């Protein structure tokens, strides 16, 4: 890494030579690459290795081939956690996308105190998830919680929120929407900031109304940004963990046990490391498949 390691002969170089330097820049990357290999790629290799073993902490390990995977696809608990994850993800993607886009359109306009309003709006995504989850838990309290009091003020019967299997997932979605709508807003806002002015002036001359302008000019132009936001949000919703774990730990019963919670329990509550590794592999394939599908959609949208 040091200057002398590169040798004095390379010091006297012309402009043309500077380009030939390219491979020397490897030395800038090597230390980081080593750490990335150790902390990101090594776990991947090791996980694949573990997933074909019956591996319990404290017990031995035994090669079992694909048995962990076979067990996974007959495990009722895992299959229902997949369904739950799908339900949670669908809601936790659609709502932030709609709200975040609306918010971005609002923050794209100029108005007094816009900077302050935008800062407050993005605070949730910077706040510590555990701390916020604790406050939400208190707000969901069926007897003393502030949310049931608010409902009673507008004449809606109280809800059991996280304490009822039927409402627990939509309730957790509320927290997720609150938390991550700002990220969608920021990405879409970045898209709006990059829009050209000309089509809008042309539309003004042609007498288009606000909705027509949005539908036929803004929406097609920000579509690539919407897809980026969609991919990021979908992946983040799939792997949501902190708030679900802190608020319900997968309960009541297993009513909010998503794949990630199931994975956590298998690995660190039951210490089934081999089985949990198989869950990781399947989970990662699901995430990659979803990302791939969304990228493919994006390519299709571009063609049209």
């Amino acid at each position, binding site marked *: 890494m040091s200057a002398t390691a590169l040798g004095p002969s390379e010091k006297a170089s012309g402009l043309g030579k500077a380009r030939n330097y390219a491979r020397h820049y490897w030395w800038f990357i090597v230390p980081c690459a080593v750490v990335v290999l150790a902390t990101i790629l090594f776990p991947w290799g090791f996980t694949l290795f573990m997933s074909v073993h019956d591996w319990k902490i404290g017990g031995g390990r035994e090669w079992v081939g694909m048995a962990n995977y076979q067990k996974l696809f007959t495990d009722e608990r895992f299959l229902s956690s997949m369904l739950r994850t799908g339900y949670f993800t669908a809601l936790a993607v659609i709502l932030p996308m709609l709200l975040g886009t609306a918010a971005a359109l609002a923050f794209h306009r100029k108005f007094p105190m816009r900077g302050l309003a935008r800062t407050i709006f993005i605070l949730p995504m910077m706040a510590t998830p555990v701390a916020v989850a604790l406050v939400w838990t208190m707000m969901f309290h069926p007897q003393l919680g502030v949310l049931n009091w608010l409902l009673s003020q507008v004449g809606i019967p109280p809800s059991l929120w996280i304490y009822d299997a039927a409402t627990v997932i939509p309730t957790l979605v509320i927290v997720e929407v609150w938390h991550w709508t700002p990220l969608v807003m920021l990405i879409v806002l970045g898209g709006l900031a990059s829009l050209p002015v000309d089509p809008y002036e042309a539309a003004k001359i042609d007498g288009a109304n606000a909705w027509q302008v949005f539908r036929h000019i803004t929406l097609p132009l920000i579509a690539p940004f919407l897809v980026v936001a969609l991919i990021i949000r979908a992946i983040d919703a799939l792997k949501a*963990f902190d708030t679900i774990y802190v608020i319900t730990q997968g309960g009541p019963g297993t009513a909010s046990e998503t794949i990630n919670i199931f994975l956590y329990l298998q690995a660190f509550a039951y210490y089934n490391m081999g089985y949990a590794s198989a869950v990781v592999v399947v989970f990662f394939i699901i995430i990659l498949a979803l990302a791939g599908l969304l990228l493919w959609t994006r390519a299709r949208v571009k063609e049209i």
Partner: protein
Amino acid sequence: MRVKKTLGDIGFGFAVVVLVSPALLVFLWMLSLSLKNELDNTAFPPVFIPTEPTLDNFRQVFERNDFFNYALNSIIVSFSATGLALLLGVPAGYGIAKMKATKAAVVILIARITPGLSYLIPLFLLFQWLGLTGTLTPIVITHLVITVPIVVWIMMGFFEGLPGELEEAALVDGATIWQAFWHVAMPLAKPGMTVATILAFIFSWNNFIFAMVLAGRETRTLPVAVNNMLTFEQVSWGPLSAAALLVTAPVLILTLLAQKQIVAGLTAGGVKGG
């Protein structure tokens, strides 16, 4: 026409209030809970403005001297993980930008989409085997999984955007590429480094899962400690809210102070930890 415009403005103002209020109200409620005594906190209908504002809840949190221990752990972990990430990630971002090796960034993207838990199983076993459990080292190392990709991603984009002429001039004058990096590119990249530092620090500070699995009694970080308050103790809303507020306050203040850089960094990369 003018009336219609005024009505539109009022409607728009109302919409902005509706957009901002969920964020504002949750934080205000957190503050309110932390400043009220137990009587106010368990009252129904809820008391919004404390009848007798009190700092007792905060005093209770501070009197448990392990709070300072956990705060110190959090500070050590987040500062080390951010510092190491800058040391490794800034040169790497520079190298990737110079070599136009953007394909290397795929690894960063994989890190971004992988659930944090999947690193934990193999690393947990590795740390056990190395005998490192019960120290802060494994927690710092796992936090690199969050901070390094953020730094590399932001710096890569930043160095790509810098004009290369200045460094090339330095190289013509006989500087080594290391000198060109240190004396020419680095000073220009300070704004990028600020953004990378802030975001890496915040997402490391907020991280819960790595420390929850890896930390022993003495090595908990603040998010883990505050979660344990909920699980293992008789729940008392005042101290719990006070603790939650103390955990997230540094991050919220940092966000308010550096909102411009944070917005710029997040808009560019869509980065998020964990």
